[in-house]
């Protein structure tokens, strides 16, 4: 769509600007303030320079949490994306099955995050949970509060349970946008199932898939509530991800300086990722308008 240049459009954006400035810029300024200052109490602050940043970037605690978080994101992406594609490819194409599948699959997405945690906390317990009980009956020594591997497995299965549907829904939306003519042409050419997937379905899913990957990466990169409810970051620090560590530091120990410095580093990483995401999203918009223009 051709957009006309009009600076008065700013008036329409103003309410959003004021509201988001109040809930984003002001708090962020507080964070910046703490990140560069130190205090001995009594509300007296003095300049600390980059001291807190050095402290954070030198601490193994930060890098360990970062490594755990990256590992977690990588694992859930490796599971959720192929699984999501597989399920989307096998979704019913029409009839009553479509809305039923969509609604049931979307269900986990609408559960409050700490209830998701609670559900899996209960489900995995060896005394009262179906999963934990069954595993222990089968002779698997499963205990997510004591064993690091079990804790990780629980947190990962929980995330797969919680978010795979997002990948499914996005891929499904991409798949239904493929005109039937494409499949018929492929049939005439005698294309194999793999070729149909590789050269028709995958290219059409490309963009939505990219959106899904970026969303899942970013959301898993700032995951807090679910693993916190299930494992509390333990056993030890085994499942302490960046957000959990940050909240522990800021609200638990009230180490404002390091917490603020860590927040800023964390936020910069997110900013970088958002930029990638933005580029992808706006390109989707361009492609969409080109397509509609071509018809």
């Amino acid at each position: 769509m051709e957009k006309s240049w009009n600076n008065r459009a700013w008036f329409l954006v103003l309410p959003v600007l004021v509201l988001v400035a109040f809930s984003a810029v002001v708090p962020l300024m507080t964070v910046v303030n703490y990140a560069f200052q130190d205090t001995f109490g009594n509300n007296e602050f003095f300049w600390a320079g980059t001291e807190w940043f050095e402290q954070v970037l030198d601490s193994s605690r930060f890098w360990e949490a970062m490594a755990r978080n990256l590992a977690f994101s990588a694992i859930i992406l490796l599971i959720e994306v192929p699984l999501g594609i597989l399920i989307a490819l096998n979704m019913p194409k029409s009839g009553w099955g479509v809305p039923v599948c969509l609604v049931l699959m979307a269900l986990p997405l609408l559960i409050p995050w700490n209830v998701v945690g609670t559900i899996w906390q209960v489900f995995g317990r060896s005394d009262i949970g179906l999963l934990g009980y069954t595993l222990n009956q089968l002779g698997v020594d499963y205990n997510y509060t004591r064993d690091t591997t079990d804790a990780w497995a629980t947190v990962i299965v929980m995330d797969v349970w919680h978010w795979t549907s997002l990948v499914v829904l996005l891929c499904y939306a991409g798949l239904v946008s493929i005109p039937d003519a494409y499949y018929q042409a492929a049939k005439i050419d005698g294309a194999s199932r793999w070729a149909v997937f590789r050269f028709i379905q995958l290219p059409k899913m490309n963009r939505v898939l990219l959106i899904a990957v970026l969303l899942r990466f970013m959301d898993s990169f700032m995951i807090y509530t679910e693993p916190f409810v299930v494992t509390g970051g333990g056993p030890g620090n085994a499942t302490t991800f960046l957000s959990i560590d940050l909240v522990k530091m800021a609200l638990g120990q009230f180490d404002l300086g390091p917490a603020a410095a860590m927040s800023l580093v964390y936020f910069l990483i997110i900013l970088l990722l958002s930029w990638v995401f933005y580029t992808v999203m706006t390109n989707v918009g361009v492609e969409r308008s080109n397509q509609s223009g071509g018809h």
Partner: protein
Amino acid sequence: MTDATASREAAGALPPGSALPDAPLNQGGGIRAGEDRVARAMRRRGDESRFWWLVPTLYIVFLLLPIYWLINMSFKTNQEIIGGMTLFPHEPTLRNYRIIFSDPSWYWGYLNSITYVLINMVVSVAVALPAAYAFSRYRFLGDKHLFFWLLTNRMAPPAVFALPFFQLYSAFGLIDTHIAVALAHCLFNVPLAVWILEGFMSGVPKEIDETAYIDGYSFPRFFVKIFMPLIASGIGVAAFFCFMFSWVELLLARTLTTVNAKPIAAVMTRTVSASGMDWGLLAAAGVLTLIPGALVIWFVRNYIAKGFALGRV
């Protein structure tokens, strides 16, 4: 599943009886044997296999099992829960639900959650509507930067904002009010609403605006009388997503409330007491948090992917 076979043929718009045969499909020239094996392993909508429905079915069973377990527990007595493994409640009881509906500190948790979620939904959509219109129709100084900046707020980790929010709202005396939580959730819901609405608005041809202006409509009258009905589904989807993300968020909601505006999700932690865990009560409270989402999801089932992709699918 004969039913499904029939519907599949109908959907494929293929003449009856022309179900894709196996043999010609695998004769694709230049496709290596390895890929062919993969090809055979990949079932697409049962063209090769009658068991395509197993995949979504198994997945849905996997999704529903933990939820079933929660519902199952919510109807049990604590003796039964701790006493042994039972796949369904042998002595079904409504005791857990009765406690929640008779104790104000419990049911106020739900009312608090719903109050701030609704305030947030209305505020977010109301301010996002004009902004999304501006982004979809006009170019203006700094528009792209602004659009990007909004997105970064949707992606900001709530953990970064927990402490500064607490201090900011303390300074304004807003701690423990519904307004505080509603405003805090605007951080990610306003950008979300702007993005979703912009996606829907871009689908409306600009000629409609121009015709309306020529017919003498003022901007506000055009916007309310003509434009908003056109994007009604978009408004519904944006409202739904604001509802959803405010409903599922807990970190900020818990940080900003103590007693009077405490969300149900935070009240749930009260089930831990000196005498041990009240599992039945915890499960019942959890089940009740699933209901609002389950109810509204039906209305947006066809748009839910678009919403998650921020209006761009």
